[in-house]
């Protein structure tokens, strides 16, 4: 036990003596959390729209007005012909194009329906779907309005059709704020990247410098060694995590409906797994460069295939299974459930058990694979 304390003291001295590293490990998470949390959304805000108004009528002018007034579109171009529209789409000058053909108003008055064309730049995939839904809603509402105000056509129909009142509800998202959803994901990503990197790099560096040999000829046991290499960075990572959580609370107002100690308890277990992976990497790499690449490889898989930023449901079956054994997924689930939904022990028991099993497994692997000998 005393040996471990001596070794831990050494790690702390080494980290805190390196001012550049201290600055990095505290500044990077804070800055990125503050900035990136705002970025992770599909909300649409003032999409750039081009209107090709070939009709130039009162009705077409009204439609343009409704689109602009809704706040979700910005009329970037308004022109009577399609000239230059193709290149505006290609250039990303506009995301959507509405073409109101000649005879639009006349057709509406005479036949109570008339064609319009919408085009979207769909290179960003799903986002285009959201823009489309917003545009259709505006067009639909305007059509109902016209049903009332337009002079009745030859048919003289009295009916106008009832407007649609679409009431949307999002379940399981009590705070209705994407930031509350994203803070845990980004915070955990940052803590993991830094903690895992520091742990993995640490041993690789000692290998490169030759100081590891010096430790290896001492009677330190494997268990002592692994513990002493894990604990300092575990504590540092918990500090980063705590800072981030406070930022989340103060700046982004994420709720703390459930038990905060439960969150920290889970964080403690999760970090053993994450840093344990770092340790395990460093047991089989030889240089810092190699360690770094293996860490990057594992971390990208770890973060991108966890459903943190993209839905797990959209993944193929095999990738969903991979996500099931991904510690990040479970920890972020626990954080979201406890903080935002106020879930208790019962809800998080299963993911917590998976994390604990992962921690034991990865540490056992690291201890087993760590060898005081070369080869």
């Amino acid at each position: 036990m005393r040996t471990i304390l001596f070794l831990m003291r050494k790690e702390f001295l080494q980290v805190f003596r390196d001012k550049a590293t201290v600055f990095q490990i505290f500044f990077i998470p804070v800055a990125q959390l503050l900035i990136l949390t705002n970025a992770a959304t599909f909300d649409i805000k003032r999409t750039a729209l081009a209107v090709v108004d070939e009709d130039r009528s009162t009705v077409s002018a009204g439609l343009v007005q409704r689109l602009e007034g809704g706040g979700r579109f910005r009329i970037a171009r308004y022109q009577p012909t399609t000239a230059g529209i193709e290149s505006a789409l290609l250039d990303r000058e506009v995301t959507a194009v509405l073409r109101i053909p000649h005879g639009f108003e006349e057709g509406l008055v005479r036949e109570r329906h008339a064609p319009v064309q919408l085009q979207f730049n769909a290179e960003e995939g799903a986002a285009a779907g959201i823009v489309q839904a917003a545009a259709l809603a505006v067009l639909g509402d305007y059509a109902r309005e016209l049903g009332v105000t337009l002079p009745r056509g030859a048919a003289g129909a009295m009916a106008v059709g009832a407007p649609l009142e679409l009431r949307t509800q999002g379940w399981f998202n009590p705070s209705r704020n994407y930031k509350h959803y994203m803070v845990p994901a980004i915070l955990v990503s940052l803590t993991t990247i830094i903690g895992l990197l520091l742990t993995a790099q640490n041993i690789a560096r000692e290998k490169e410098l030759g100081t590891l040999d010096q430790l290896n000829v001492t009677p330190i046991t494997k268990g002592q060694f692994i513990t002493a290499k894990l604990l300092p960075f575990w504590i540092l990572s918990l500090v980063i995590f705590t800072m981030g959580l406070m930022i989340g609370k103060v700046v982004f107002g994420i709720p703390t409906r459930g038990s905060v100690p439960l969150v920290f308890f889970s964080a403690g277990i999760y970090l053993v797994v994450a840093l344990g992976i770092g340790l395990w990497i460093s047991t089989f790499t030889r240089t810092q460069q190699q360690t770094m690449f293996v860490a990057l490889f594992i971390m990208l898989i770890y973060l991108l295939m966890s459903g943190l930023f993209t839905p797990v449901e959209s993944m193929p079956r095999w990738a969903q299974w991979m996500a099931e054994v991904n510690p990040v997924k479970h920890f972020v689930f626990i954080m979201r459930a406890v903080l935002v939904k106020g879930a208790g022990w019962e809800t998080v028991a299963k993911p917590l058990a998976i994390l604990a099993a992962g921690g034991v497994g990865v540490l056992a692997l690291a201890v087993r694979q760590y060898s005081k000998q070369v080869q």
Partner: protein
Amino acid sequence: MSALAIDARGLTRRFGDFTAVDAITFHVAQGEVFGFLGANGAGKTTAMRMLIGLLEPSSGSATVAGYDVVRDAEAVRRNIGYMSQKFSLYDDLTVQENITLYGGIYGLTNAQIAERTRKLLGRIGLEHARKELVRRIPLGWKQQLAFSVALLHQPRIIFLDEPTGGVDPITRRRFWEMIYETAATGTTVLVTTHYLDEAEYCDRLSIMVDGAIAAMGTPGEVKGAFGAASLDEVFLRLTRPGAA
């Protein structure tokens, strides 16, 4: 328990097709200063690394302090000190912090650490630099410090891998004085070097060529066996057979 500090029998290490150490057999008595000579790449370091449990032998066996280096590696580690060729104290820690760390690892009490630090620094004249980062002290001192730290837990056997590489002649002289002082307390010293003048200081020595021991004995015996006036001559004859 054997009275021999080191007893190696047919110790061999292969890396792929390359045999770095080829069935060497030798022994070192307690309290002896034993020199391992050889050109770069002759297998000295590899042999030493097998003895201290950093490298597993491909075949053969060895005991160090009476313990088998493979089966009882942990017991071996408790009884040895090691100073590697590559300087391996932490250069981003201070002199004191390095000493405290290794003291703690070997289970010394705080009082013991304090006392030995004082003695150790006094001996090498480094008291003024106690709080200095190791990175900032001159190489000669660094080497003496590394040697002293390797002795901190008073091991029965100390392994020195080219301890005098790159240091000035005065420090080298000083270093050998330290080696003798250490041996005088009954500690066995195994030292590798490629400085032939240093080899004269050893009680016994072995010359390694291409992984095998080509000559062994006291400096006088070795010179006698080859009918040579100096170890230099012996060495040249062994390494460049055509030349002589």
